[in-house]
């Protein structure tokens, strides 16, 4: 019983990481239809920000707290810059954004390699987050790493913040208006180019926050973005493009699935099985779990 619970919780914590890395994409890819392959490198930028801050701030706890907003700003600024330099020229050619931003991601990876060196670096986790918490005591205890709980909390907070922003603020209303009908939004007096850039800033900033979280579970290196980006895209695709609800559900389902399969097979076979499952799922729902019903012929 504890084994199942333990695997489930591992799955939930994998899911929380997946959710964090996919959340920013649900804005830039899901809402704006831009396939930003450099999103993984924005995550990397967030992680390196944490690393740099820890060099100057001695307390690991404070540096982590400072890193969250700073990483958001750093990655967000990178994203806004990318949007301004390249992506605004490509809104009509979404597939080309994929390859163009792949070029950007290559350059950012090399930049990281030149600045921080090719080997992975590590940050210290604050003392509060290094221990375990016991959920079920007794002979067969179920313990959970504090850092995993922190990531879960961070993911939930980020989802709540993003969905409130989209639902309640004027900015959120403008973003939704542009997504639903760009031309109509434009003639209604919304500056679509500003909205695009702001949405990109927020989406990329969330990647930075994900990067901070990733420093708690693994090393920081120039290729860390490539390792997570595919998973993030798969979460969005399966959840349904532009559907925050779908992203959340699918992140946790895929996390648990991955964890359970890893337990019964191996890591690599589990990855392949998850992918086969995704292809099968898209047979059933080609547009993902949740779709916006439209009258288009897709």
């Amino acid at each position, binding site marked *: 019983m504890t084994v199942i619970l333990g695997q489930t919780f591992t799955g939930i914590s994998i899911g929380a990481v997946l959710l964090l890395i996919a959340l920013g994409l649900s804005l830039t*890819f899901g809402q704006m*239809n831009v*396939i930003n392959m450099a999103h993984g490198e924005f995550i990397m930028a967030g992680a390196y920000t944490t690393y740099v801050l820890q060099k100057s701030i001695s307390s690991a706890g404070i540096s982590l707290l400072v890193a969250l907003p700073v990483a958001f700003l750093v990655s967000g600024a990178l994203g806004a810059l990318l949007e301004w330099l*390249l992506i605004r*020229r*490509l809104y009509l*050619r*979404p*597939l*080309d954004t*994929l*390859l*163009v931003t*792949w*070029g*950007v*991601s*290559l*350059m950012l*990876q*090399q930049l990281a*390699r*030149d600045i921080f060196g090719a080997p992975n670096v590590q940050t210290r986790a604050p003392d509060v987050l290094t221990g375990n918490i016991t959920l079920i005591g007794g002979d067969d205890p179920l313990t959970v790493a504090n850092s995993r709980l922190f990531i879960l909390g961070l993911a939930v907070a980020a989802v709540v913040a993003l969905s409130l922003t989209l639902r309640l603020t004027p900015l959120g209303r403008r973003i939704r208006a542009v997504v639903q009908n760009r031309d109509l939004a434009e003639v209604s007096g919304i500056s679509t180019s500003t909205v695009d850039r702001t949405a990109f800033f927020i989406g990329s900033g969330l990647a930075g926050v994900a990067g901070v979280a990733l420093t708690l579970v693994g090393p920081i290196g120039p290729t860390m973005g*490539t390792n997570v980006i*595919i998973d993030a*895209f*798969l979460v969005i*695709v399966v959840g349904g*493009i532009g559907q925050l609800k779908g992203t959340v559900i699918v992140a946790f389902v895929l996390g648990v699935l991955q964890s359970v399969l890893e337990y019964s097979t*191996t*890591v*690599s*076979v589990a*990855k*392949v099985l998850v*992918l086969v499952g*995704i*292809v099968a799922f*898209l*047979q059933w729902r*080609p547009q993902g779990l949740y779709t916006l019903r439209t009258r288009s*012929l*897709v």
Partner: protein
Amino acid sequence: MNLLKGPSARAAAGFAGAAVVLFALAPLLLSEFRLGLLAKYLCIAMVAVGVCLAWGRGGLLTLGQGVFFGLGGYAMAMHLKIADAGPGNLPDFMQLYGTATELPWWWQPFANPLFALAATVLLPMAVAAVLGSFIFRRRVKGAYFAILSQALAAAFAIWLIGQQATTGGTNGLTDIQGFFGYALDDPVNQRMVYFIIAAVLLLLIALARQLIHSRYGELLVAVRDSEERVRFLGYDPANVKLVAYVVAAGMAGLAGALFVPAVGIISPALIGIVPSIEFVIGAAVGGRASLVGAVLGAVAVAWAKTALSEEFPAAWTYFQGLLFIVALAFLPGGLASLAGIVRRRRAAAEKKAAVIPVGEAA
């Protein structure tokens, strides 16, 4: 005189020129080492021919060509490894790990050279046919298709790495000595491999050209530009796309198979996400919709990679990134479209020049 005009005559002349360069000039002018490298680039160009068909003509951005390249490559390498080991013996890496006492069942058919050769093309095509029919029938397209194909490449590479005992894991299948009884370290045989590769490339280009200029080729472009209209005309766009995807997969498989004797290795590092994107990039830089552009682009980018990355690995990565950005953001037709753009600009300028004096006279 009319023989020298018209598209087919020009294509024939182009083929003759390419054949002269590939079969006479290159072997004459290049050192053994350079010729070996060229053989490798030509394999990448074969993948680009398929990419031109599937992506440039059909709009299917396939970022998983590494899967098919790998299937072809591993099929060929498995046979060569078994042949190197001799009958009854195990390939060297299996003996090294000591995990297998006899050939795994799925290796055994590859001992047969005919089966292995057929598998290098038919296996990737079969996989593409199954995947494609699932994906296209349910109208998974655009970004969904690109990401799915990329994930497949990642999963295939991860799976290969995980099966250390039977696939060689991260190392892949290395140290291949012979090629159907010919020793690969002999320069004469290496040259023979080069000639085979050059000939196959020309054949594939001819095949792709035939397809592009057929009724099917027009349908393919029509599906790319407006799938719904093609459906309303009574065709099934899924089938049209499927053919392009399967043919591209077969070409990638063949390229992988010929890559093995040319380079002597096949490994997960050659077929994962990064190489799969690189297969596409050469074609994009040269011009995705033009066969000549795609092939020359693939060769040029592969050549630039070797030339620059040996000397300045960091600079090459920046340059490569910049190349993608410039070619795709600012020159979506690739370098092949440059001539057309210049011609149009010049024509427009001449028109202007011709119009203005009339205006002044009036």
